[in-house]
């Protein structure tokens, strides 16, 4: 991920703190050392991404990669996805949906809305850890554009 020296920040929106911790650990194990900014609910994440005025200018000229869970306590991740992809400042930021839902319609909907990757969290932990580690390796070779 446009690695060392380039300030790509990973925004992780995940309500389950245990999952968040496990994701972080496994990404780190893959050698990803970028800044990771965790949020456990949608409201705070939106405030970070779009600022107090909601314009998204706060995210301008940044390189952001967003890890998004769909099941959030205060809203569905789809709302966040929609906002990210409809905002001129954030629309180029890659969004990786990482959730437990494997409903086909849900997956279609996310890609329709502009999700870049959709990953179903594996149920058993070994696969889960493995998937996250591979995702981390993927991050290492991924190009993230700068937002406008």
């Amino acid at each position, binding site marked *: 991920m446009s690695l060392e020296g380039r300030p790509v920040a990973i925004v992780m929106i995940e309500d*389950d703190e*245990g*999952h968040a911790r*496990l994701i972080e*650990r496994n990404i780190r194990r893959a050698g990803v050392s970028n800044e990771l900014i965790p949020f456990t609910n949608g409201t705070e994440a939106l405030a970070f991404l779009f600022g107090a005025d909601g314009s998204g200018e706060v995210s301008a000229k940044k390189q952001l990669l967003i890890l998004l869970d769909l*099941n959030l306590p205060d809203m569905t991740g789809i709302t966040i996805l929609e906002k990210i992809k409809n905002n001129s400042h954030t629309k180029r930021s890659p969004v990786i949906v990482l959730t*437990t*839902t494997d409903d086909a319609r849900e997956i279609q909907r996310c890609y329709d809305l502009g999700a870049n990757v959709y990953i179903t*969290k594996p*149920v*058993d*932990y*070994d696969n*889960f*850890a493995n998937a996250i580690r591979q995702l981390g390796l993927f991050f290492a070779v991924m190009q993230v554009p700068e937002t406008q």
Partner: protein
Amino acid sequence: MALSNFTLMRATAAFIALGMLILLGMVGLSYWMLDRTRQSTEEVLITREMRSSLVDLLSVVQDAETGQRGYLLTGEQRYLTPYDAAVKLTDERFDKLAGVFARHGGGEGFLKELKLDIDAKLAELAKTVDLKKGGRGDDAMAIVLADTGKDIMDRIRSLIGERREAVETRLNAAVASQRENASILQWSIIGGGILIVLAGAGAAWALTSYTGELVKARAEVESLNSGLELRVRERTADLQRANDEIQRFAYIVSHDLRAPLVNVMGFTTELKASLEPLQAVANDPIVDSLPAAAEARTAADKDVPEAISFIQASTKKMDSLINAILKLSREGRRNINPEPVNLALLLEGIGASMQHQLNDSGGELVVGKALPTIISDRLALEQVFGNLIDNAVKYQAPGRPPRVEVRARSERDGSVLVEVEDNGRGIADHDHDRVFDLFRRAGAQDKPGEGIGLAHVRALVRRIGGQITLTSELGAGTTFRVKLPRNLRATLEQSGELRG
């Protein structure tokens, strides 16, 4: 209902029977009247014949007398001609009269008397005519003047007159009887007609009422039926909703249970990983001097790894249970896709995929002949029969190579019954229902499994509009019977369930 259907039916029959009776009576009466009329007509004919014979005889005798008188007065031969003709005719006429009386009986005395008188008269006439012819006109006139001939003639006239009067009376009586017959017949026809019309009207009334009752009853049945249909549809919709709710509930519960479970499993693994450096420290001789070194070593080497292994086993178990629930609920939510499925080919495919297991145990799968093509969901059918045949092979009886037979037949209600029969270990009576329950198994627990297969099969069979039952004898074998609609599309359209 005003009158019971039974009463109405009886009334209809009674009216029809009454009409028939009246008709029969009228036929009998007509026949009798016809006979009477025939008798009267005969009587009229007889009496007429008698009357005319009497009149004819009298007139011919009178003709003879007239001819004689003319001849006696004039002596002219031409007066003799009518006389001769009349004399000749007299016998003939008398014979005819006698014939008429002889045919119809009676009058012997009268005929005898009349014959004597006529013969006497003719003798008198002949005698006078002969005298005149012989030129003895005066003698002839003397005989005439003696009035013997006139007396005889008077007697003949009165004899015939009396008889004629009697015949006339008989004739009048016969004509009167004829008239009477005609009027009786007329009235009986009118009366009978009225009665038949009344009986017909009665029958028509009863029939109309009966039909009315029937129509009413039918309308009632129809309205009940449509009400029932509506109720069934409402009930089905309710059940469908409840079912959907349960499916959603199962999905959400199992889905939401997974998230914390991933944490439990994840951090247990982390814990296990963290244990290694701790164990290294605990086993380092350096710590021997510490007071709790022995306990720390026991904890690091035995207690904690044991706890972790229990946690992992339990979470694995829980994970598989949650997965089973998820799978079931997902099956329930999956859109089914009715298409023509050739059961013979489908089973052939299953047999091919199971060939390895069958070969290992020396078993065989026998697919019956003429398995039909039905319209159903292929995936569901594959899973149903795959599971059943897999179970049949898996739970074989010890020391007996498995033999699985699949056959199908059409049911009277238009569905198809597929039977999967095995010679396996069988299922005890008290477990027949239990085996279909989720996470429940029966018999010796010597094969791996979670008690999901048959629950899954039953859910699938229900999903494609079917039913599954089993009969089994412990130690002898089990037969599963899967009843499927021949056309799932039609069944779904009927219940308004076809989606997409």
